[in-house]
C-alpha cells in the first residue's frame, strides 16, 4: 500500500512537472491572462449590466473556456505521450498497477488545473478589486452598499470551477482509455463536455409530454452525462447585487456531485484500461 502511494505521488509529480514545461500550457495561460486582463478594456462595450458583473462574467467565461481546453488537451497529451513513446510499458512492468498509473496521471493534471485556476482567479480578483475601489471612490457609500463583491464567495466559486474542470478531465481520461487515437479522444472529449453543458436541457424537455420511448432515451441520456451547468453559480456566490444568494449547503452538494462523478469516471476508466492492450 505504501509503495502504491509512493508510486502515485511520483507519477503525479512527474506528470505535473512535464505538463507545466509544455509550451501548450504556457500558450493557454498567456491567452487566459490576456483575456482576463482585457476585460477592463471590453467593459467600454458594456451596456446596462453593472461593470463588475460584466468583468466577472467575461473573466470567468475566459477561464472556463481555456481551462476546459487545457483539461482535455493536456489529459490526452500526457496520457498518449506515455503510450506512444512506450514508456507506459516500462512503467507498468515495474510493476505499477494500471489503476495507479491512471490515477497518478489524473492527479498530475489536477495539480496543473489547480495552478491554472489559482493564477487566473488571482488575476481576475485583482482586476475586480481595483475596479471596485475606483467605483467606490466615484460612487461613494451608496454604491458600496449595492455593488460590492464577495471575495470569499469568489474563492468558493473558483473551487467549484476547478472541480468542474476536473470532471471534464476525468471524462477525458475515460475517453482516452477507450480511444485508440489522439484526435478521436480529443474530439469525443470536447463533445462530451459540450453535451455536459447542455445536458440540463434534456431534463427540461423531458418534463414535457413525450412518448415512452423518447422519454426513456432522454432519461438514459441525462444519466450518462454529468450536468455541468450545475456549477454556473457565479452571480449568486460573488455578486451582492444579484439579490439572491446560494447557501453553503448547496455549494457542498454541487462540489460533492462533482467529486463523485470524478470518482465514477476514473473507476470506469481504470477498469477499461486494465483490459486494454498497449
Amino acid at each position, binding site marked *: 500500500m505504501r509503495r502504491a502511494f509512493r508510486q502515485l505521488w511520483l507519477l503525479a509529480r512527474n506528470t505535473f512537472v512535464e505538463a507545466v514545461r509544455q509550451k501548450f500550457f504556457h500558450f493557454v495561460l498567456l491567452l487566459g491572462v490576456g483575456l482576463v486582463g482585457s476585460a477592463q478594456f471590453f467593459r467600454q462595450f458594456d*451596456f446596462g449590466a453593472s461593470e463588475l458583473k460584466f468583468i466577472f462574467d467575461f473573466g470567468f467565461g475566459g477561464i472556463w473556456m481555456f481551462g476546459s481546453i487545457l483539461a482535455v488537451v493536456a489529459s490526452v497529451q500526457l496520457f498518449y505521450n506515455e503510450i506512444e513513446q512506450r514508456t507506459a510499458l516500462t512503467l507498468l512492468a515495474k510493476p505499477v498497477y494500471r489503476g495507479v498509473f491512471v490515477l497518478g496521471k489524473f492527479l498530475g493534471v489536477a495539480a496543473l488545473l489547480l495552478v491554472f485556476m489559482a493564477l487566473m482567479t488571482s488575476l481576475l480578483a485583482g482586476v475586480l478589486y481595483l475596479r471596485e475601489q475606483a467605483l467606490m471612490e466615484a460612487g461613494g457609500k451608496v454604491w458600496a452598499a449595492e455593488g460590492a463583491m464577495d471575495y470569499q464567495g469568489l474563492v468558493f466559486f473558483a473551487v467549484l470551477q476547478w472541480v468542474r474542470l476536473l470532471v471534464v478531465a476525468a471524462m477525458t481520461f475515460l475517453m482516452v482509455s477507450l480511444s485508440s487515437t489522439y484526435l478521436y479522444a480529443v474530439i469525443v472529449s470536447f463533445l462530451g463536455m459540450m453535451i455536459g453543458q447542455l445536458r440540463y436541457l434534456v431534463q427540461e424537455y423531458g418534463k414535457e409530454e413525450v412518448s415512452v420511448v423518447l422519454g426513456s432515451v432522454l432519461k438514459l441520456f441525462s444519466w450518462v*452525462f454529468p450536468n455541468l451547468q450545475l456549477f454556473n453559480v457565479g452571480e449568486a456566490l460573488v455578486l451582492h447585487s444579484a439579490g439572491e444568494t446560494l447557501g453553503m449547503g448547496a455549494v457542498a452538494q454541487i462540489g460533492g456531485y462533482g467529486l463523485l462523478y470524478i470518482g465514477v469516471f476514473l473507476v*470506469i476508466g481504470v477498469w477499461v484500461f486494465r483490459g486494454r492492450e498497449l
Partner: protein
Amino acid sequence: MAEAARREVAQHPAQWVKAQGLAMPLWLKRAVVVVLLLAVAGAALGPLEKRAWMQVRALQPELRLGELEGALGQGVVLGLLGGFRAIVADFVWLEAHSAWEEHDPARVEGLLDMTTSVDPRPLFFWQNKVRMLALDMPMWELRRRGGFQGMPEAARREMFTFYAHRGLAAADEGLQFHPDEPELIEYKAMIYNTRLSDKAKAAEFYRKAAAIPGSRVYFARAAAALLDEVGRTQEAYDYLNAYYAAMTGLNAVQDAGYQRQLRELKAKLSPEDLQD
C-alpha cells in the same frame, strides 16, 4: 445433422456465435458496458443532482420561462456562450444601433431580437427595444409613405396601432426576465397613452408601476392625471391622496407638485373648496 448442430449450440453457445460471425466486437462490448455503468452511476447520483439543481435553477430567471421553446433557446445560449454572452450581446447591440441609424426596420428588429435572446439580463436592451419598435419604426414608415400629409389618417392610425402592439409584446417579453422593473411597465403605460389613446389602460399601468418600491415619483401623479382625464376624478383623488400620505423622502419640488395636483383634483370635485 440438425440435431448435432442444436447440441453444439446448447453446449458451446459463445463459440457458435463467434463462428457464425455474430459476436459483438470487443470495442462495442466495452462501450455498451461503459454506458450502462455510467447510467447506473448517473441514476444513483440523480437525487443529489436534483436537490442542487432546483436551487441553482431558481437563481436563473432565463431558465424559468413559461414557454419551453424560449427556455430551451436561452438554455442553449447559456450553455454554449456562458460568461461570453454579455460581450456577444453587446456587439450585436452595436450592430442593431448601426442599423437604427440607417432606419432599416427589418434589420433593426432582427438584431434587437438576437440581442435580447443572447443576453436578456440588461434592462437597457429591453427599454430600447420597446422604444424603437413602438416609437421610432412607425415614424420611419410614416416618412417613407410621405409623412402626415401623404398618408390617410385611418391608415396612419392602423400603422401606429400595429407598431404599438409590437412594443407592448416586447415589453411583456422583457417583464418575464425583469418582473419587478417599473420602467418597463411605465413604457406600456406610455404606449397605451400616446399611441393607442387608451388613457384608462395607461392609468392602470402607471398605478402598477407606482406600486413597485423604488419607482419614479411621478408615476402616481401620471396615473391620477389620466384617471381625471377619463372622468374618474374621485378615484384619481382618492388614489393620489392615499399614495401621497404613504410617501416619504420627497424633496420640496416634488412635494409641492403632489400638493398642487391634489388641490386641483379636489377643486374639480367640490368647487366651493377652491379658495384655501
